[in-house]
């Protein structure tokens, strides 16, 4: 059976049902047993004159990165879709409305910029939708029908996901949408009978019914609920808002509450207040909001109060590019804020890790009594992947609070200087362990104390505690392990998928390349990273930032300079760019 690796884009204006169509493709292909990675991009100006684009990469093997070229483009608005023309491959399939309501000028037409080799499928989306369902609103579904017919996707996959999507709106809405889909399907089956393709072979063992299509943000929201989250405090900010919206919908039925606060400062303040009182709480934000939180994050460090903060990075600095992706908050997450304020920073690399790392963040925060920052980014938050429904064990959601023993009652020291640096923690309601948590430097008992001896001792204690956390943090994972590597590529966050795909392809080209995935950003496992760097003739760190923020953090672990590959395009790094750099390094060396 041929391997499927197919990328389809849907492009339209806000309001065209673009995102919905892309979502249905993801769901239908997941149901068909394929691996799916989807990513939407939309404008900051909602409902203005915004362009929406969805990109779905569909594969018979696991898909880890976004498709660089579209094999098919479904245009719901030709003027907007012109921007996608450069991403079409030579023989892409182009689906467009062949009977728009008015004549279109050449400079607004999609076909006038499409490469000559594309295969054109003109389908009167609106006309068909109107005659099938009485309204042109279903033209996005008509387009999907045409796409399914031409590419040979089992139409029942689409019909089932259409039913699921619209069932909450009643039978009539389901019916209208099914009719619109079928109209496009039947039209294309007839009109293009001589050029129907079979791009998606059916296979029994690919039943995808156990898989769910989840975005990074949904996975984070689900994990928070599964972790027993009781309070979410947040302030709207792209791209973190969907987490708040997800929780606002589902947290109440699990006995929790979402409070939309007046700003990000109050959000983290309330999270710290909740954890101080012994209850799991969380906030999610993006760079600008994270910057506002830094003072209270360091308060959590100093007063040793847990907190869970999702920093969904976007392109910056300042307001930056709110709807574009970047990995440029690493330094802010690790170092941001006054003083020596070491905290835990972890970064998932895919949707599944978004789930499990969020679960883990609560335990880490509780045990190490410090803010834990989960670094995601726009691409990871908004991309969808189909995965088996995440399941948690009791162990994964167990409370990791360490309480003082009864025997210490009366002589309880909240900031007891233990070998691990972890001091048993009490909270209000526990009799006999009253204390005052403070952002002032304090003694083991919690009394403010500015003496040089005390500040030295307690600073060291807090850092020792953070180092102890390495015991519970995910170790770096080496892919394609080898004793010697010509190029060792280190990746983190959403970029790692591109690293993995690039390394895999370079290996197929005969290069001795390996990949190291780092998910524990701070503290990090320096010995493992050091060993990987030492055995690689070149160390390459691709990142979606200009400064090379991970490279800056770990470059000192090896004597040779680290090769950097930095992209600030607002879009994920294409695997080919990494692959080219890898192969370029080796070719230069060969000369």
């Amino acid at each position, binding site marked *: 059976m041929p391997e499927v690796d197919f990328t389809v884009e849907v492009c339209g204006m806000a309001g065209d049902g673009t995102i919905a169509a892309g979502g249905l493709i993801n769901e239908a292909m997941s149901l068909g047993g394929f691996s799916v990675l989807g990513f939407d991009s939309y404008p900051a100006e909602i409902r203005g004159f915004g362009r929406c684009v969805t990109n779905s990469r569909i594969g018979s093997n696991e898909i880890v990165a976004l498709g660089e070229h579209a094999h098919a483009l479904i245009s719901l608005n030709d003027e907007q879709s012109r921007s996608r023309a450069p991403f079409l491959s030579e023989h892409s399939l182009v689906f467009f409305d062949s*009977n*728009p309501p008015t004549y279109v000028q050449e400079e607004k037409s999609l076909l006038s910029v499409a490469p*000559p080799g594309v295969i054109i499928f003109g389908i009167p989306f609106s006309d068909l939708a109107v005659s099938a369902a009485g309204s042109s609103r279903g033209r996005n579904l008509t387009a999907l029908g045409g796409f399914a017919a031409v590419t040979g996707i089992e139409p029942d996959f689409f019909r089932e996901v259409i039913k699921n999507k619209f069932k909450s709106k009643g039978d009539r809405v389901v019916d209208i949408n099914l009719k619109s889909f079928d109209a496009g399907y039947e039209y294309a089956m007839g009109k293009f009978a001589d050029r129907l393709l079979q791009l998606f072979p059916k296979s029994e063992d690919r039943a995808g019914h156990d898989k769910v299509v989840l975005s990074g943000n949904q996975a984070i929201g689900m994990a928070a609920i599964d972790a027993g989250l009781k309070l979410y405090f947040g302030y709207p900010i792209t791209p973190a808002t969907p987490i708040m919206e997800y929780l606002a919908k589902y947290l109440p039925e699990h006995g929790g509450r979402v409070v939309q606060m007046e700003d990000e400062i109050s959000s983290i303040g309330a999270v710290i207040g909740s954890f101080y009182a012994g209850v799991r709480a969380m906030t999610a934000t993006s760079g600008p909001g994270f910057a506002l939180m830094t003072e209270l994050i360091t308060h959590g460090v100093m007063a040793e109060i847990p907190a869970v903060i999702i920093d969904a990075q976007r392109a910056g600095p300042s307001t930056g590019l709110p709807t574009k992706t970047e990995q440029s908050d690493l330094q802010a997450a690790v170092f941001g804020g006054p003083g020596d304020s070491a905290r835990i920073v972890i970064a998932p690399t895919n949707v599944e890790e978004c789930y499990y790392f969020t679960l883990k963040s609560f335990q880490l925060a509780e045990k190490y009594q410090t803010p834990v920052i989960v670094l995601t980014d726009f691409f990871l938050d908004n991309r969808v992947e189909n995965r088996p429904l995440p399941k948690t064990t009791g162990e994964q959601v167990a409370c990791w609070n360490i309480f003082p023993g009864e025997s210490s009652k009366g002589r309880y020291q909240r900031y007891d200087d233990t070998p691990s640096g972890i001091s048993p923690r009490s909270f209000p309601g526990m009799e006999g362990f009253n204390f005052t948590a403070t952002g002032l430097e304090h003694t083991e008992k919690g009394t403010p104390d500015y003496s040089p001896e005390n500040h030295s001792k307690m600073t060291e204690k807090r850092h020792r505690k953070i180092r102890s956390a390495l015991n519970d943090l995910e170790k770096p994972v080496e892919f394609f392990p080898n004793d010697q590597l010509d190029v060792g590529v280190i990746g983190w966050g959403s970029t790692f998928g591109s690293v993995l795909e690039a390394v895999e392809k370079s290996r197929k080209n005969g290069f001795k390349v390996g990949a190291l995935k780092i998910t524990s950003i701070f503290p990090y496992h320096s010995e493992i990273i050091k060993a990987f760097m030492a055995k690689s003739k070149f160390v390459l760190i691709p990142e979606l930032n200009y400064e090379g923020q991970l490279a800056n953090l770990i470059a000192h672990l090896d004597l040779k300079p680290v090769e950097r590959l930095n992209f600030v395009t607002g879009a994920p790094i294409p695997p080919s760019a990494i692959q080219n750099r890898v192969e370029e390094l080796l070719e230069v060396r060969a000369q």
Partner: protein
Amino acid sequence: MSVQRFVVIGNGPAANRAADSLREKAPESKITILSKDPFRSYRPHLLPDFIAGALKEEDLYFRPHAYYKERDIILRLGQSVVNIDFSKRNAILEHKELVPFDGLIVATGGKPRIPEQFRLFEELMLTLKTPTDAKLWIEKLASTEAVLIVGGDLTSLSLTKALLKLGKHVRFILNEDAFWPRPLNDEVYRAVTERLEQRGVEVIHCRRIKRMTRLQENLLEMETDSQTIEAGVLGAFFGLVPDVRFLVKTGLDIDHGVLVNEFLKTRFTDVYAAGDCAQVYHPGLRDYWVSIGYENAAALGRIAALNLLGSRLEVRVEPESILEVGGVKVNTSWWTEF
């Protein structure tokens, strides 16, 4: 002055030569080729070899997309022009797009000619003009051994060779329209029959075809005035006629092709026609003529382009190029009769 926009309709030899000439002489202009066919320029005379399996499909095409990109010629394939608005100077595409032009060259070429008496049976007959037609031949031939060819133009003769190579049983009805545009005189008729029969083709003599029916998916029946013939595939070969039906409502003068003067200009300023679709006035003949053949079409394409850019080149009827069929000479350069 703003950039001049030239539109060429068609993607055959006339169209391509016209586009190349425009680019050569007007380097700053915007040039767009609009072609209803979804495939690249191809060599029609290679189609029989392709059917015979002697060539890959890729070998039919001769200009990569990069050729156009390098010359900044916008190639738009599979997009039909359905009308032309000469007042606003827009070519109107089937998908309701308006492509504005300052100068236009119509070079849509020809399409298979089906004589009046066969129009009723048109859908039962295969023609051979494009790679798409060739693929249909390949598909049909896969499940049949018997081929019946009616007509008998040059293409039919090379196809027959290909069919024989494939081991098919070929029968040939040399119809009175055969060898159009030349009338089929007895001399030619006898010579061709002899040559065909030498190669193992059964030549059927008949005056009139009365009826054609499809008996099964792969079985057709034809009744002539003298006999009933069964065949798996029926090919019709009566030459080409200008492919200009879509221009009828535009206001252009259309007879069989687009009527142009000896400078290839139509009745509209800066609108020219060239190649197999043009019906060219000949002041000497005091009649219109239509060219035949690849080189002729290309030459006309070049003249149209240069005249559009301000030259005043008169078209001359090329000397008859001669095809020998069984020792008989046939003119293949141009024709005036329909």
